[in-house]
């Protein structure tokens, strides 16, 4: 396959940045999207150019490091797939592919396609924890959890914090991420003591970071590589209103 890439290049946080066009030839359809970029980067290095910086780690779709907006869609158009698990067979030969970083004020570009997502860490720090006595692990069945609650909590807990929800949201809202973390804990007995303070603190931190508000467009769920459902946001809203009584 031969491809034309339009890639966002930005030398550093202060640089204005620009789209740069690259031609990539002899791409195997079996390559992942990141492997295709690796091939381009090897060539750029050999030519003495600066390789394109992008975040990646496990390349198995479970770590949440990778992520770029491909042709205007976070992680590309393949549903429930991280960028590293997106394969070139989903693109046509001679396709023109636009690659951009997540765009959001709370996610400043560090370099090229790498953005600083520590705003997410601060949202977690604001309330994404539970208080448990340290010591040996408790018996597995000492605290009963209903199956439906366990399943729903687990669904929410599969959030890998990649930031695609923010990138896709027309409002630049981090509601799906924050809601996944809140839902994951508030459905379980261990999360009850801090349930009210958690929702309040995490929502306020989300606002303080400069994320937009939710308008229930559903764009976040549609691009989420883990398919975090929209009803987590209803759960967050419920918990937040409860805490404001």
């Amino acid at each position, binding site marked *: 396959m031969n491809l034309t890439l339009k890639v966002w290049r930005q030398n550093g*946080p202060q640089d204005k940045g620009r789209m740069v066009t690259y031609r990539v030839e002899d791409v195997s359809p079996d390559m992942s999207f990141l492997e295709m970029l690796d091939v381009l980067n090897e060539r750029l290095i050999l030519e003495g150019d600066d390789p394109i910086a992008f975040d990646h780690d496990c390349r198995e779709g479970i770590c949440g490091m990778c992520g770029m907006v491909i042709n205007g869609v976070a992680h590309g158009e393949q549903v429930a797939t991280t960028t590293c698990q997106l394969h070139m067979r989903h693109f046509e030969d001679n396709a023109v592919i636009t690659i951009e970083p997540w765009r959001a*004020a709370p996610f400043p570009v560090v370099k090229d396609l790498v953005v600083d997502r520590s705003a997410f860490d601060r949202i977690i*720090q604001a309330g994404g924890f539970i208080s448990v006595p340290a010591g040996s692990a408790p018996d597995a069945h000492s605290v009963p959890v209903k199956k439906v609650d366990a399943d729903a909590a687990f669904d929410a807990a599969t959030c890998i914090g990649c930031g695609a929800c923010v990138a896709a949201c027309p409002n630049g809202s981090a509601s799906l991420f924050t809601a996944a973390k809140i839902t994951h804990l508030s459905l379980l007995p261990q999360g009850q003591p801090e349930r009210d303070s958690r929702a309040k603190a995490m929502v306020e931190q989300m606002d303080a*970071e400069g994320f937009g508000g*939710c*308008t229930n467009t559903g764009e976040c769920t549609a691009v989420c590589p883990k398919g975090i459902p929209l009803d987590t946001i209803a759960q967050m809203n419920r*918990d937040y209103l409860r805490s404001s009584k």
Partner: protein
Amino acid sequence: MIERGTSTAPVDPPAGTPAKPVTTGTTRRKSVGFLGSSNGRKAVMAVTGAVLVLFLVGHMTGNLKAFFGAASFNEYANFLRTMGEPLLPYRVALTLVEVVLGACIVLHMWSAVSLARRAGKARPVKYAAKRKSQAGGYAVHTMRYGGVVILLFVIYHLLDLTFGTVNPAGWDGTPYERLVAGFAPERWWVTLFYAVAVVMVGLHLRHGLWSAFQTLGLASGRSYRPLKGAAAAISAVLVLGFLVVPVAVMSGVIK
């Protein structure tokens, strides 16, 4: 600071990025309060929107009186002013309703404008590629400009049928006379404007109705289908119910 491996130089956070306060369970950042938070403002939008929807249902039902003749329509218009009598003096109940509706409109717009500004600030650099909607749904993308169209419409509508300023029958006409004169066949463009605006209201509610339940935390995974179905049905009924009267006047069914 972003911690990197030793092979990569450490990266400083962009200059001008204020150090963000990190809160923990024990030292909480000063709360911005319910109305300062995006969630609180969304709740205001949902509740005020719900009040306005209830008004629309009543308004639409009342409009249909036009099909029962001038006497029935004018009697209904008079009833609105004498509501609550003799307990309340003339027009007091109606004025109270108007004050509540006016407050709802102002609060609804305040939350919408402030949240839209916040959303604008959250994405200072736009995407170069045209973003494709992955979620589907047309109505959701009409909410902001549709809201502006609805506001302009409400202003015209009040000048037309309430105050009679832009109505041929004027202030002195009976409500029925204003209705018939306002949507007269030669003023087809008025009916067209009403149709566009009412369809906008329908789209607004198509998204707004279920969205309000979501915002107030009353939706869940299983309730999305019935909620969205109900939103579509109620929106359709309101659009048809509101449009049938002006169209009937314009086509001469109501004279």
